[in-house]
């Protein structure tokens, strides 16, 4: 990587627990703008916890360490402020909100973030045009946009909807939590293409996944292995193939 590229996400010695049970135990991670980092690891290694802690889910307590986004202290901000600051989490299980049309939700979210950043709200015609453009590429129909947010959506539709939100909100850092779970290969390709289209030199990605197959489509710059709440190994994209072949057993023992 070029040395003058700025640090986007910087996590130092992060410890976090849920109901007094430690999950993250001294995690360090640096992501520069323009990079795609994959985090792989066995079930229970704390991958999803990392995404929730970064986004600010209240069930988790940060007991030690720090995380900054573009130099700003993430832990000093409410979840919505973190979103406005440019952090986007693509949920493993996107929530359903009955009665709230997807379009309404997108507009409310976009305008809330614009307001928080001191930008003017987007006029409705422009907004609709923008959504249609982005939605077309992801194969999201107008009908889906009118339906209640994620209500009655298939697994693939929910994930595409997450990518649509990512495209629309244009975050600085995207955290994808097991985005491949529950997707067949065609859906996976659509989602991956959507993500790839968003790769840019001023944007970073943290792709959390259990399996290597997603990384065939979203090719990472760096691959980390996580076990027992820490990054235990870091390498290039070939590391993912190695893991696919050998499994996580070594790392589970190593960290124990």
């Amino acid at each position, binding site marked *: 990587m070029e040395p003058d590229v700025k640090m986007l996400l910087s996590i130092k010695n992060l410890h976090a627990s849920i109901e007094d049970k430690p999950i993250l135990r001294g995690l360090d991670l640096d992501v520069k703008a323009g990079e795609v980092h994959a985090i792989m690891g066995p079930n229970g290694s704390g991958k999803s916890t990392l995404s929730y802690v970064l986004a600010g889910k209240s069930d988790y307590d940060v007991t030690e360490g720090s995380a900054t986004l573009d130099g700003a202290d993430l832990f000093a901000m409410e979840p919505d402020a973190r979103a406005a600051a440019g952090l986007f989490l693509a949920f493993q299980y996107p929530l359903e*909100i009955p009665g709230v049309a997807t379009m309404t*939700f997108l507009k409310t979210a976009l305008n809330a973030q614009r307001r928080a950043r001191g930008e003017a709200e987007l006029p409705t015609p422009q907004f609709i045009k923008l959504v249609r453009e982005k939605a077309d590429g992801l194969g999201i129909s107008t009908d889906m946009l009118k339906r209640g947010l994620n209500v009655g959506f298939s697994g693939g539709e929910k994930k595409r909807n997450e990518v649509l939100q990512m495209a629309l909100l244009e975050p600085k850092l995207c955290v994808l939590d097991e985005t491949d779970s529950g997707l067949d290969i065609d859906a996976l390709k659509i989602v991956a293409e959507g993500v790839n289209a968003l790769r840019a030199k001023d944007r970073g990605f943290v792709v959390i996944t259990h399996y290597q197959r997603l990384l065939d489509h979203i090719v990472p710059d760096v691959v980390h292995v996580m076990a027992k709440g820490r990054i235990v190994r870091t390498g290039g994209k070939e590391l993912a193939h190695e893991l696919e072949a050998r499994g996580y057993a070594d790392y589970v023992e190593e960290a124990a």
Partner: protein
Amino acid sequence: MPAVQETVARVRSIDVDQYKYGFVTEIESDRADKGLSEDTVRFISAKKGEPEWMLEWRLDAYRRWRTMAEPKWARVDYPAIPYEELYYYSAPKGSSGPKTLADVDPELLRTYAKLGIPLQEQEILAGVEQRRVAVDAVFDSVSVATTFKEELGRAGVIFCPISEALRDHPELVRKYLGTVVPATDNFFATLNAAVFSDGSFVYVPKGVRCPMELSTYFRINERNTGQFERTLIIADEGSYVSYLEGCTAPMRDENQLHAAVVELVALDDAEIKYSTVQNWYPGDAEGKGGIYNFVTKRGDCRGRNAKISWTQVETGSAITWKYPSCILRGDNSRGEFYSIAISNGRQQVDSGTKMIHLGKNTSSKIISKGISAGRSQNTYRGLVSAHRKATNARNFTNCDSLLIGDKCGAHTVPYLEAKTSTAVFEHEATTSKISDDQMFYCQQRGLSSEEAVALIVNGFVKDVLQQLPMEFAVEAQKLISISLEGSVG
């Protein structure tokens, strides 16, 4: 629809910190002596220049009321109402009856403009299609203005204050008044029958589709004054009317009594759609002041294929005691009740409906969404009954409650009574809170916690909002957000 659009704009622009309609209009008024006696009843009747039969009807009600006790079965708790300390009639000076808009006291016009209800008959702008609404404005005890009367008159629709209807159409009033809610119906309805001072009257003749929405805006202004309006709407065979009702009152430390009666009559193939946005002053956060809203609303589907639909958005009042009901007398008639009841602060809501199936093949639908926040108590109370001869009666009921905060209560008390085996009743109710996960998801997308609550709540009540005329729905949506201000910490 300029009136409502204006209202919407007002609601949008106001500082949302507290009740928006809490100002007092300084205007001289004509009041009956304090307290209630036969003389009060005679005074009111005389003020209105009513026929003798009407006075007798009122006096019968008054005597009956003296023997009655306040109902105690609702889940509302309030100190004894000092009936002898109230004023039962208050009217802005000089407005003994409605007149042309040009004659209305400018102070009153300003009041309604401030409420977002300009009492003007705005012209339709060239090329711009706008729906219009005829407004009857009721200020304390009297109607101060009614718009679009002439245009409605051309369609044969009568829309006027009930006091005027008693003078100009006594045969119609006499034929229908008290036939849906008898003068002896219940404590508050009987009190209303004795002392009601004004309200709206609507008659839509056979086969006429009312050319515009009709609406009444009620305003309580005077101190220590009860408001007792009475609305009577008759939809003759094959006619249709949509009626909207809005209510506000000043912020005052003492409680004020509002005991209204609404009667709807739908004859063969007629349809009445009645929508309410009730935003009486709810009292302050500690429960001081606010309107006691004890209202009897009932519709009678008297003819075959008649349809009555109630939609209510209840955000105001310290106490709400109201059960807009349908008597499904005509074969194939249909009743609907759509309700959003929001309580915050120390508000107490006990509201719901009754669907009384009497005719064959009658159907009803109840969708109730209750939202409790603060230290409020919110109760849905409903009855669905099918009598022996109501073969093939159908009801579907869905009551959902949402709790915001752990100091409030949400209660559901439905009664289902099926006396015919051909009836099919389905009832479902749920109570839950907004899930933490939903909140987190919205916040992760950049919404503040208050925005997230408002969004989720609006989704929760969507089925009901959809029933409102569009402009009213927008207004209601804003009101919902405002009423839940401060409910999340």
